[in-house]
C-alpha cells in the first residue's frame, strides 16, 4: 500500500491509551497516564497544559525518545498506519528526522555548535536518502529560505553562534522540515522568543503545514498562541487529556472546569482591570495524586462521584469530567 493510501485510511497520528511512567526511587511518576490523540494531514493540534502536566513527556514518547527510568508501559502510537510502540530501535531511528521530527524549546538541542549549518543539514539529508552533495546543499538552501532566513546561500556557511535566538530556531525548524515529515512535534519552540519574532515563526509554520500537508503538534502553556494557530486543542492536566475539540469550540464553550479556569485566568481586553479567575491551589505532585479525578482538590464542582476516575466522553468535543459545564455557561 502506498503512503497516500494509508493516510487516507487513517489520520497521520493516532495515539490510544498512551502511558509513560518513570520508575524513580521516590515512586512511580505517571507523567503520561492514558493519553489519546489524533492529528490529521496538514492539521495543527495544540497540546496545552501548565508546567509539569506531561506535555513534553508525551512529545518525547511519540518519537521513542524516553530513556530509563522511564518507559512506555501501555498504549499504541500509530504513525501513518505504522505501530511505533513495538517498532525496533533501528526502525525508530529511520523514522526520526525523516517521517517524524521534533523541534525543541532550545534550538541547540537540534544544532551542533561546532558544525556549519550546511554540514548539519546535508548530513541530515544524506542520513535518510541517497543524494549528492550539490543537490543536498541546494535543498538545504531552499529550506532556509522557506523559514524566512535572509541570504540563505551565505548563511549556510555560518555556525549556530553567529545567529540570533530566533534565527537559530528557524534553522532548527528548517532541519525538521527537510524531509517533509508526516508529523512534527514542536515543544514550546517560541517560548523564549520575542513577540514579533514568535509571530514570524508562527506564520511560517502555519503556511508550511498548509502547503506540505505535514501534521503538527504544537506544545505550549500559552492558550493564546494555540487559539490563533491551531485547528484543534487537547488540554492536559496531571498526565491526562481532560478536554479536546475544535479550538474555537473549546475557547468559546470550555466544558472541563480546569479549561474554564485556565481561560478565565488569561488577562484579556474585555475584562481590563477586573479580578482574574483564580484556580485555587497549585498543580499537584505526581507522587501524591488523588485517586479519582486529579483536579478534584482544586475544583468547585467536586463531589463524591469525583472520587472515581472520569472517562473521556465521546463526540467531537470530548471532556473528562463527571459534571462538565453546560455549553451555555460563559467562558
Amino acid at each position, binding site marked *: 500500500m502506498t503512503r497516500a493510501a494509508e493516510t487516507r485510511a487513517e489520520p497521520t497520528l493516532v495515539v490510544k491509551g498512551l502511558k509513560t511512567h518513570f520508575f524513580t526511587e521516590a515512586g512511580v511518576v505517571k507523567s503520561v497516564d492514558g493519553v489519546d490523540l489524533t492529528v490529521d494531514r496538514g492539521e495543527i493540534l495544540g497540546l496545552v497544559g*501548565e*508546567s509539569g502536566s506531561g506535555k513534553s513527556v508525551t512529545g518525547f514518547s511519540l518519537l521513542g525518545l524516553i530513556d530509563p527510568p522511564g518507559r512506555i508501559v501501555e498504549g499504541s502510537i500509530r504513525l501513518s498506519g505504522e505501530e511505533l510502540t513495538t517498532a525496533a530501535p533501528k526502525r525508530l531511528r529511520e523514522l526520526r528526522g525523516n517521517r517524524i521530527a521534533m523541534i525543541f524549546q532550545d534550538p541547540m538541542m537540534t544544532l551542533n555548535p561546532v558544525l556549519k549549518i550546511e554540514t548539519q543539514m546535508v548530513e541530515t539529508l544524506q542520513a535518510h536518502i541517497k543524494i549528492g552533495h550539490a543537490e543536498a546543499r541546494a535543498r538545504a538552501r531552499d529550506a532556509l529560505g522557506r523559514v*524566512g532566513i535572509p541570504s540563505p546561500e551565505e548563511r549556510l556557511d555560518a555556525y549556530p553562534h553567529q545567529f*540570533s535566538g*530566533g*534565527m537559530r530556531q528557524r534553522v532548527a525548524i528548517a532541519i525538521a522540515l527537510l524531509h517533509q515529515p508526516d508529523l512534527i512535534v514542536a515543544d514550546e519552540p517560541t517560548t523564549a522568543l*520575542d*513577540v*514579533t*519574532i*514568535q*509571530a*514570524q515563526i*508562527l*506564520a*511560517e509554520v*502555519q503556511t508550511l503545514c498548509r502547503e506540505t500537508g505535514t501534521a503538527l503538534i504544537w506544545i505550549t*502553556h*500559552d*492558550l*493564546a*498562541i494555540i*487559539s*490563533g*494557530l491551531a485547528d484543534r486543542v487537547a488540554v492536559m492536566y496531571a498526565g491526562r487529556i481532560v478536554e479536546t475539540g475544535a*479550538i*474555537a469550540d473549546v*475557547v*468559546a464553550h470550555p466544558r472541563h472546569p480546569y479549561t474554564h*479556569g*485556565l*481561560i*478565565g*485566568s*488569561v*488577562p*484579556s*481586553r474585555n*475584562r*481590563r*482591570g*477586573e*479580578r*482574574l*479567575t*483564580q*484556580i485555587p491551589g*497549585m*498543580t499537584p505532585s505526581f507522587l501524591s495524586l488523588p485517586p479519582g479525578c486529579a483536579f478534584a482538590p482544586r475544583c468547585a464542582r467536586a463531589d463524591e462521584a469525583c472520587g472515581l476516575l472520569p472517562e473521556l466522553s465521546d463526540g467531537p468535543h470530548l471532556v473528562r469530567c463527571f459534571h462538565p459545564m453546560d455549553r451555555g455557561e460563559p467562558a
Partner: protein
Amino acid sequence: MTAPRKTAENATRVPVISAHGIGMTFLKKQPGRIETWLRALGAPLAEPQGVRALDDVSIEVMKGEVVGLVGESGCGKSTLGRIIAGIMPPTAGSLRFMGKEQAEMSPLERYRAKVAIQMIFQDPFASLNPRKRVAEIIGEAPLVHGIVDKAGLSAYVDEIMLKCGIDPAYKQRFPHQFSGGQRQRIGIARALAVKPQFLVCDESVAALDVSIQAQVINLFMDLRRDLDLTYLFISHDLGVVEHIADRVVIMYLGRVVETAPTEELFANPRHPYTQALLANMPRISTGKQAFGSIKGEIPSPLNPPTGCHFHPRCPFATDRCRSERPALRALGPHASAACHLAEESAR
C-alpha cells in the same frame, strides 16, 4: 467595568518618579588608570565604546498610577527599572523622587527614597536566600529600618504574610519548601514589609504558570487598592500590561517610542512598532490569527541602526527615517510617539 478602579485621572497628579534624559552606556571594557586620568585632565579622547542600553529616556510615574513598561528583549527595560529603583546610577540624565533631585538629596533623604522604592524580580527563587526561614526573609529589613521593634516583629510578619496570601503557619519554612507562585508572594511580602510607596516589578509574573500568574496579578491589584501603591510594571507580555496598567510606555532598542493611556494605546497605536506588537500579540480568540506582519530581526544594541532605530523593519520608512532621529512628540493631551509620520500612521 464592575470593580471600582483607580485610573490615572483620579490619581493625584504628583510624580513619584520623574526621570529626565536618562542615558546608560555599559562599557565594553573598563577604562584603565591612565585613560581615566587623561580624561579627567580633559584630553580629547574618542567616546568610549559600549552598549547604549538607554538613550535619552524620560518617564514620569504619578502617585497611585500603574505604568506598564513594554518592549522586546534587550531594549533596556530592566536597566531603566534598576536605575529608577536606585540600584544603579545612570551615566546621563537626572532622576527626581517626589519632586526632589536625587543628586541634591541629603544622605538621609537618599536612604528614605531607597526604602520607599522596592524592586520585585522575575525569578523569585534566585532572589530569596535559601538558608533563611521565611519569617527572617520578610522580617529582616523592617527590623533594620526601625519600622517595627523586636517585640512586634512576629505579629508584623504574620500581618504581611496574610496580606500576601501566605499562611503565617508556614513562617518557619525555607524558600525551597514553597511552590513558584508562593515564592513570588514571599518576594512581594519581603518588599512590602518596608512599607514602600513605589514598586518596580520586573517580569514579576513571567515565570509563573497561567493559573498562578492570575493569583499574583490579583494580589498586585489588591495591594494597590489597599496600600495606595504606585507601580512601574515591566513586562514583555502585552496582555498582562493591558490588564493591569493605566498607562503604557513602549520601548525599542534603548528609546521610548510611544506612551499613552492604556485604552488609547491599544485602541489607537501611533508608532509603527507598537502597531506591529499589537497585531502580533497572541490573543485568546475563536478565530485564526494572521501572524507575522513584521519582518526582520531585532537589531543588536551594540550596533543600532541610524536615525530611527526601527527603520530597517518599518514598512513606512523614508530616507529621513534613515538619517534623522524622530523626537518623542506630544500627539494629544496624554499621548506621545517618536515617529516622523506619527500623525499619518495612526490607524
